[in-house]
C-alpha cells in the first residue's frame, strides 16, 4: 500500500495510520464512497502525503471485516452503482481508542525527542 516516494517533501502514509485516517474521515464527513474518501484524505493532508488512492480499498475491506464500517450501495456522480461506506457504532468506539493510542504514542515520542535535545 506504500507508494514510491517521488517528491522529497511528501511522506508515505505512516504504517498503520491509514485505518485511522479513514475512520476519522468517515466520522467527520459521514457516508461516502471510496474515491471521495481518498480525495478527502489527500485534501486534508495538503500535499504533505503521498497516497496511492487504490490503497484505500484493501483498507476499507479490512475495516468492514472488523465491523467498524458498513457498506451500502449508492449511485455515484457518474451514475454508476458504487459502495458508500459509513462508520458503525463499534467503529466510532474504535476510532476513539485509536486516537487515544495515537496521542499517547506521539506524546511519548515527543518526550523522548525533547529529552534527547
Amino acid at each position, binding site marked *: *500500500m506504500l*507508494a514510491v516516494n517521488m517528491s522529497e517533501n511528501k511522506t508515505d502514509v505512516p504504517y498503520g495510520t491509514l485505518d485511522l485516517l479513514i475512520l476519522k474521515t468517515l466520522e467527520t464527513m459521514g457516508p461516502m*464512497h*471510496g*474515491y*471521495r474518501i*481518498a*480525495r478527502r484524505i489527500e485534501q486534508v493532508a495538503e500535499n504533505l502525503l503521498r497516497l*496511492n*488512492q*487504490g*490503497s484505500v*480499498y*484493501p483498507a476499507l*475491506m*479490512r475495516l*468492514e*471485516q*472488523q*465491523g467498524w464500517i458498513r457498506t451500502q450501495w449508492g449511485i*455515484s*456522480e*457518474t451514475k*454508476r*452503482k*458504487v*459502495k458508500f461506506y459509513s462508520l458503525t457504532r463499534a467503529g466510532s468506539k474504535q476510532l476513539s481508542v485509536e486516537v487515544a493510542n495515537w496521542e499517547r504514542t506521539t506524546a511519548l515520542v515527543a518526550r523522548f525527542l525533547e529529552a534527547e535535545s
Partner: protein
Amino acid sequence: MNLRWAVARLAALFRKRNLDRELEDEIRAHLELAERDAIARGLTPEEARQAARRSFGGIEQMKEDHRDHRGVRWMENLLRDFRYGMASLARDPGFAAVAVGLLALGIGANAAMFSILDAVLLKPLPFPEPERMVRVWEAPPHSLPNVTSTLTFLDWKRQDSVFEALSVERSTRAAVGTGGDPARFPGKLVSADYFQVFGVKPRIGRTFAAGEDQPGAAPVVVLNYSFWQTRFGGDPEVLKRDLKLDGEPHRIIGVLPAGSFDRDEAVFWKPVIFAPGQMNREQHWLPAVGRLRAGVSLEQARSKMSILRSSLAGVMPSGKKEWGFAVDPFAQMLVGDTLRRTIYLAFGAVLMVLLIACANVANLTLAKGATRRKEMALRAALGASRGRLIGQLLTESLVLCLLGGAAGVAVAYVLLRAAAPLLAASLPFTADLSLDLRVLGFAAAAVMAVLILAGLLPSLQTSFGKLSHSLNQSARGSSGSSATLRRTIVIGEVAASVVLICGAALLLKSLMKLQQVDAGVRIDHVITMTADLPSTAYPSAESAARFYDAVVQRLRAVPGVEQASVSLDLPLQGVRWGESISLPGVTKTFHVDLKLVDPWYFDTLQIPLKSGRGIEDRDRAGAPPVVVINEEVARQLASSYGVANPVGRIVTIDVPGYGPVPESLVNLQIVGVIRSERTGGLHRPQGTVAYLPLAQAPRQDIKLVVRTRSDPLAAMTGIREAVRQVDSNLPLGDVRTMEQVKERSMLWAKQPTWVVGAFAGVAALLAALGLYGVLAHAVTQQRREIGIRMALGARPGDVLSYVLRSAFSMLIVGLAVGLAGAFGLTRVLKSLLFNVSALDPVALAVACVLMSLVGILAAWIPASRAARVDPIAVLRDEG
C-alpha cells in the same frame, strides 16, 4: 482475531467471484470519478485518464493485496488440495478403503481405551471438590484398615472442625415391594448427611434432613435414577408413594440424578438408625465416608484424628489398644493397583497397534508415492515450490486421516457401547465411559499424530527425491531409497508386534500357571448361591439356625444332589470376617480369618481332615464352643507358641453376634485341623483361617453350597424348589458354579491377558499385511528382473527362495529389535505375572516362532506369485 472477522474471511472464500467483480466495479467507478475531476481541472481526456491511473497506483498489486486480506490464501490452497485429495482417493478406492479402515481401527481402539483411562485414572471424581472426600477407618497395626464401631463413629462425627459431613456407608439388602416378586435389591444404610459428603443434589424431591437418622424418625428412602426409571417408569408422582423394604413402608423422598449412582451397586439409600444394642465399641460394622471442612488438609485431618484417638485411650476395648484412626483420600480406594496397571498396559498395547496401523498407512502412501513421482516431478518442473508439493501430499494424507478419525470415533462409540457392560464390574462406579469432549480431543490429537507419522514421512520422501531424475528415468526398477524406507518401516512393525506378542505370551503362561494352582476344594459339580435372611422373618439366632438345618435337609433330598451345606463365605472369594486369636494366659495374639460353616461344608467341598474331627451336628448353640483350624494356624501355633499338637487346646477369639448383637470373646476348643482350602486369590499365599460352627454363631448373609452328581446347573430347578419349601419368600442370588467362582477369582489376570492378546493378534496381522505389501510391491516392480533371471535359467524354486530370503531378512531384524524392546518393556508386566519371569525363555521363544510363522505366511503369497512369472510374457511386454 474475533469471530466476526473469521466468519467474514471464511465467507469471502466462498464468495470469491462476486467479491472480485465488486472490486472491479469499484475501481472502474473510482477511475471515472477521478477522470471527471481531472477534466474539470482542464486536462485533456487522455491526460485525465493517465493522471487518474497514476494517482490510483498499481491496480493489479492492489487487487492482490485486497484478495490476500480478504480471504485466507493458504486456506484457498488447502481447499483446493482437499478437493484434489478427495478426487485422488476416489480414483483409488481400494487404497482409500484399506487406509481409512486401518486408521479407523487404530484411532477408534485408542479413543475407546483413552475414554477408559480418562474415566478411571485422569478425570477428577464426578463430585464437587473431590479432594475433600475421605474414607475414615480404624487401623490395627500392620494390617488392613478396619471398619469402625458405633460409639467410635459418633465420636468422629463430633469432630466438626475436621469434617463438614461424615456418614456411615453400609451395604444392605432388602426385599422390595409386596408379594409375588421376592427379589432382593442392594441398598445402603447411611447417615443423614451422606449426600453432603458427595455434594449430590437430588433430581427430584430432597435428600435426607438432619435428624432423619435419629430414633423415632419416620422411615424414608432415596432412590437412584435407574431404579426410579425401571421400577416406577420415571413417574414424578413417586414422591407421594411408599416403598416397602422387607415389608416395612418407607416414604420415597427423593431421586438421585442419573450418573455415578446408577453404576454403584445400591438402588436405594435409607438412614441408619442405631439401636441401643449397637452402642458399643466392640462391634466393627460401620464403613465411614466424609467430606473434610474447606481448608482442612489431609495431614491436618490425620493429626486431629490421632489426637482424638489418644483422648479416647481410656474407653477403647482392651484388645484394640494399639489401633489408630486412619484417614484416606476417597479416590485412593476406588482404583486398585491391578486395575491401574491393567489400564496402563492396555493403553500401551493399543498405542502400539496405532503405531503399526500408522506404519502400514505410511507404507501404502509410500508405495502410491513411488508411482506418483513423475507427477510430482512435472509439477516441480512447472514451478511448484517444494513446500507446495509437500503441502499437497500432506493435505491428501489429511483427508485420509480425517476420514479415518471420523470412522475411528464411530468405532470407539461401538467399542465402548459393547465394552461398558462387560467392564462395569471391574471399574469404579465413578467411571463414566462416554465419548465426551476430552475423548474427542484425544481422537483429534491422534489424528494429528497419525498425520505426522503416516503423512509427513512419505510426502517428504516423494517430494525430496531427485525429481529431475524421476522425469528422465522410466520407472522400471524399484527406487532405492523408498524401498529401504519401506523395509525399515516393516521391520519396525514386526518389532512392535513382537513386543506385544511377547507380553501376551508371558501373560498367558502366567494365567495357565494360575489355573493349575490347587484350590484345595472340589471345583467341578459344585454350585453356589447366596441367600439373605431378612431380620423380619429371622429375628433370632435360633430361627436362623433352624433355617440352616431345614434347608440342608431339603436340598439333600433333591434328585441329583449329593451333599449340601451352608457357609458364610465361599472358597476363593475372600473371607469377610477376621479376628485376633490368642491362647489363654499368653498376651501375644495373631490374626485369623473367621469362616462360619455348617457341619457339611468340609464334606461338600471335599476338604480333607488332617487331624481331630471336623465340625459336627452336635456343635450347636449351648454345646461347648469349638473351632477347626487350617494348617497355617497349626503351623503358626507350633512356631510361635510351641504347640505341637493343637487339637484339644483352648483358644480365645472374638465371635460375631447375630444381627445387631456385638461380638464377644469366647474360649473355644480346637477340635480338628483341616487341609487348607484357598480362601482368597490363587496367586496369594494361603493365610490363617479358623472355622466356627455356623450353628454357634449364626449369620443372616449366607451362601448355599451344593454338590451334584451331574450337571450342577441342571439341578437348579430342584434346588430352588427345595429352598422355596423352607421359605417361599427367600430369593436366591448370585447362582454360580464353583468353576465360575474360580474363573471370577482370576479375572484380574484374565483381563490383561485377553486385552494384550487381542491387541497382539491385531498387531501381528497388521505387521503381516505390511510385510505382504512391501514384498508384493517389490515383486511387481522387479517382474522384469525376475523374468530375465528365469529366462537365463533360474528355476521357480530359486525365485521363491529369493523372495522369502528378503522376507526373512526383515523378519530376523524385526525379531531382534522386538526382543530387545521386550526385554526393556516386559518389566512393566512383572507385577501382573504369577510365577513367571518377565524374561521367561519359553514364552519369548513361542512369541518369536508365532511372529515368524505369520511373517512367512504373508511372504508366501508374493513369493509364489514371483515364482509363477512367465519370462516370455515379461520380455514381450518390454518389447
